């Protein structure tokens, strides 16, 4: 067993590549979906009921769908409509779309819990529309929902492992290749698991920091 671990650690190069790919894929799609979710959350509370209902329907369906299903729909069905993208584009786009739905719903929930007075005071001072959202509402709901967003980011990291199915060289894909070459599946996958643990523990540590900030700012 020790000898097998030595074999795995000898293959640190592909494993590092996979690890770094997973890290940047998750960081990029997490950041992009956070930005997008801010806009989607505005649709979710829109006063135009047709718009609001359409957005909420899309968010609800995405949240009820397994990530692998969305990935396959994007990867296999879009070419049937003569839309061809590389597996990288498909993978990143699916991660972003899927995660945006979850982030947007989290922001909407935090918004619903924000005291009405905040918005009213903002309006009394002449804020309205986007300005009101950007200056008064958004900073508060971001602080309040920070920990939940962090947990969702951990889910994103775990979903990113599905990208191996469409041959994106992420951590799981690279580990699977290493184990297939040397036939040391248990040890290789265990190393991969430990690397995922490192990523998720780091996010958790950041989340705990954000929780402290949220408590100091008066959010439970």
């Amino acid at each position, binding site marked *: 067993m020790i000898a097998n671990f030595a074999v795995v650690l000898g293959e640190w190069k592909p494993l590092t590549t996979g690890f770094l790919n997973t890290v940047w894929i998750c960081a990029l799609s997490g950041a992009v979906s956070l930005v997008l979710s801010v806009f989607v959350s505005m649709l979710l509370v829109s006063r135009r009921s047709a718009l609001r209902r359409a957005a909420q329907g899309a968010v*609800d*369906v995405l949240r*009820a*769908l*397994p*990530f*692998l*299903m*969305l990935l*396959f*729909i994007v990867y*296999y*069905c879009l*070419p*049937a409509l003569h839309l061809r993208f590389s597996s990288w584009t498909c993978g990143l786009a699916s991660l972003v779309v899927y995660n945006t739905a979850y982030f947007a719903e989290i922001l909407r929930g935090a918004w619903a819990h924000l005291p009405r007075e905040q918005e009213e005071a903002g309006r009394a001072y002449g804020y309205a529309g986007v300005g009101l959202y950007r200056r008064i509402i958004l900073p508060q709901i971001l602080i309040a929902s920070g920990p939940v967003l962090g947990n969702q980011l*951990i889910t994103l*990291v*775990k*979903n*990113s*492992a*599905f990208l*191996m*199915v469409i041959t994106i060289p992420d*951590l*799981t894909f690279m*580990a*699977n290749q290493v*184990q297939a070459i040397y036939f*040391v*599946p*248990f040890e290789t*996958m*265990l190393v*991969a*698991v*430990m690397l*995922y*643990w490192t*990523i*998720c*523990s780091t996010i958790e540590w950041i989340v705990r920091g954000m929780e402290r900030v949220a408590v100091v700012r008066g959010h439970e």
Partner: protein
Amino acid sequence: MAWSPLLSELARGTVTTVTVSLAGIAVGLVLGLALALVRARGVPVVSPAVAVYVSVVRATPMVTLALLIFFGLPSFGLSLSPLVAAIMIISINTSVFQAEIWRASLLDFPRGQLDAARAGGMTRAVAFRRIVFPQAWRASLPGLVNEMTLVVKGSPAVAVIGVVDLTRVAVRWTTVTYEPVRPFLTAAAIYVVVVMCLIRLQRSVEQRIVERYGSL
């Protein structure tokens, strides 16, 4: 463009997905409660080991876990059929999340009641069976039903090791007929319906508990 062969294939895939998920949840329920109890007991060495185990498995993607179990265990002489491996993967995954749910409701349990039970002469085991469990399960139930939706959404990972679940049926149909849109969209719709039913179940469970016991 016949619908009936596709639908009957998808129906069989749905049965596999639901069976594997339910079996995994059932095993995970027992395992999860056991893990939570060991952790709550505060046994030296064992409880911290359980805490680390829970933390590691919680951070492990389903696919990675699937590959670890399905390809890794045979090197210890444990050869598993894909279906058994699938149930094992799902139970290992869900047990740690269920352990966290149980742990939360055990931590919330009023300490005074336990002390009173012990002072009344109950052993730890009896106090757990008669006093703690009948109240703690109520606090855990909504979380456990919510965990069921997460299990169904994670279950396509077992398609990767060759279990012909709903996802794999759609993939197979596509590779044979070169026709992706119908199988994938129909399979997606089935997943959405199953998950939405579970969400509805969670809401009604919460409501019933509130109606019967006053609060969660």
